[in-house]
């Protein structure tokens, strides 16, 4: 055991609430002591559940261990706690990239780049963007699939957050769970509905936007932040309903003093969120959500 590890272990033993576990687990990870690193990191997460860095650390260790599904979940947790978390966006960007879902990979890389202007990240995002554009062109002309500059982009995205050899074994489970990308234009999704861009949001099971949008009272677009919190809500609602023998879930609603929120599942692979201010009663919002859900279902069926 080196002095660094020994001293950090002693500090952590002396004060289990200390954040030194982040440095200790990271050091162990870099030295390839992955089981020990994971033990330290998961204990840290148990004590600091709302610390996004702790979930990010766990995700990187899971990734190094080749458990892409666990890494994916841990990065999603990190994003739920901090929607701008750099490591989580980079990690998810790379997982999506390896799974071949370039639009989502690009979205995460762009979000990472926005919060942390970095030439390496911008270069990686630019390469993935070119690949997305190329794919779109080829799809339009029904030509053979593009061979993208995968290795170059992977090297740029990987940097020191994710070890490239591990990501070579990106999890098939994650890939299988990823829904098909949304079409380039979603303008027709909620055509004719009031609030199509500021009160209706269609998202996939991983909390990524498929269409629509949500704005707060100041007019800022909060769609991605809201969607990140709803990642996995469908699974959670299904689980709750199943455990209580209530059958398939039909809606989840939240009544607030200044507004109401209503979720419906237009399909097994999507959730629709409807938000209105308090002038729209919860009952009326439910009817509106049902109608918007039918429109979303038709739109999703056209994609299939």
């Amino acid at each position, binding site marked *: 055991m080196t002095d660094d590890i020994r001293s950090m272990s002693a500090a952590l033993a002396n004060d289990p609430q200390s954040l030194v576990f982040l440095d200790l687990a990271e050091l162990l990870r870099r030295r390839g002591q992955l089981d020990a690193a994971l033990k330290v990191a998961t204990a840290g997460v148990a004590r600091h559940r709302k610390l996004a860095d702790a979930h990010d650390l766990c995700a990187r260790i899971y990734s190094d261990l080749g458990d892409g599904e666990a890494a994916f979940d841990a990065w999603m947790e990190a994003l739920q706690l901090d929607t701008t978390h750099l490591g989580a966006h980079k990690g998810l960007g790379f997982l999506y990239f390896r799974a071949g879902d370039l639009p989502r990979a690009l979205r995460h890389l762009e979000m990472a780049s926005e919060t942390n202007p970095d030439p390496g990240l911008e270069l990686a995002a630019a390469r993935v963007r070119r690949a997305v554009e190329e794919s779109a062109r080829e799809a339009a002309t029904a030509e053979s699939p593009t061979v993208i500059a995968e290795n170059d982009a992977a090297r740029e995205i990987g940097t020191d957050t994710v070890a490239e050899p591990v990501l070579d074994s990106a999890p098939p489970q994650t890939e299988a769970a990823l829904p098909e990308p949304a079409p380039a234009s979603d303008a027709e999704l909620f055509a004719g509905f009031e609030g199509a861009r500021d009160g209706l949001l269609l998202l996939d099971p991983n909390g990524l936007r498929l269409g629509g949008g949500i704005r707060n009272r100041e007019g800022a677009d909060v769609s991605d932040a809201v969607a990140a919190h709803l990642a996995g*809500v469908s699974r959670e*609602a299904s689980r709750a309903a199943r455990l*209580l023998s209530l059958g398939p879930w*039909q809606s989840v609603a*939240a009544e607030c*003093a*200044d507004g109401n929120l209503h979720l419906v599942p237009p399909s097994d692979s999507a959730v629709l969120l409807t938000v209105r201010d308090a002038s729209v009663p919860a009952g009326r919002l439910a009817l509106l959500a049902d109608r918007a859900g039918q429109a979303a279902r038709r739109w999703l069926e056209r994609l299939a």
Partner: protein
Amino acid sequence: MSGRYREALERVSAVRGVQGAMLVSASDGLVVADSLMEGVDGRAVAALAASLAGRLGRTTESAGLSAPRVVHLRAERGSLLAVPAADDLLVVAVMRADANVGLARLEMIAAAGEMG
């Protein structure tokens, strides 16, 4: 269970179609007190309700709204309702599809008010 909690939960449980009511710690999803019908897994209900309420709380905050006053999961054969109360507590009820949800909601809001 203290008499105050018991009375409040029993009023909720007395509403037609309500299978049981419970008081849950919102932050860790543990049961504080319950008045449940046999066959309802209280610990599972508590954990799931707290998780769902927490997730929706973070969602409404992100959307620029205040914290939820009522959370309602509706399913084919029934509902789960959760109403936040003081001291990090949630009043939670499970009910069948034929329950009087409106009355249960009012009783739960009243019960939550009594916890303060």
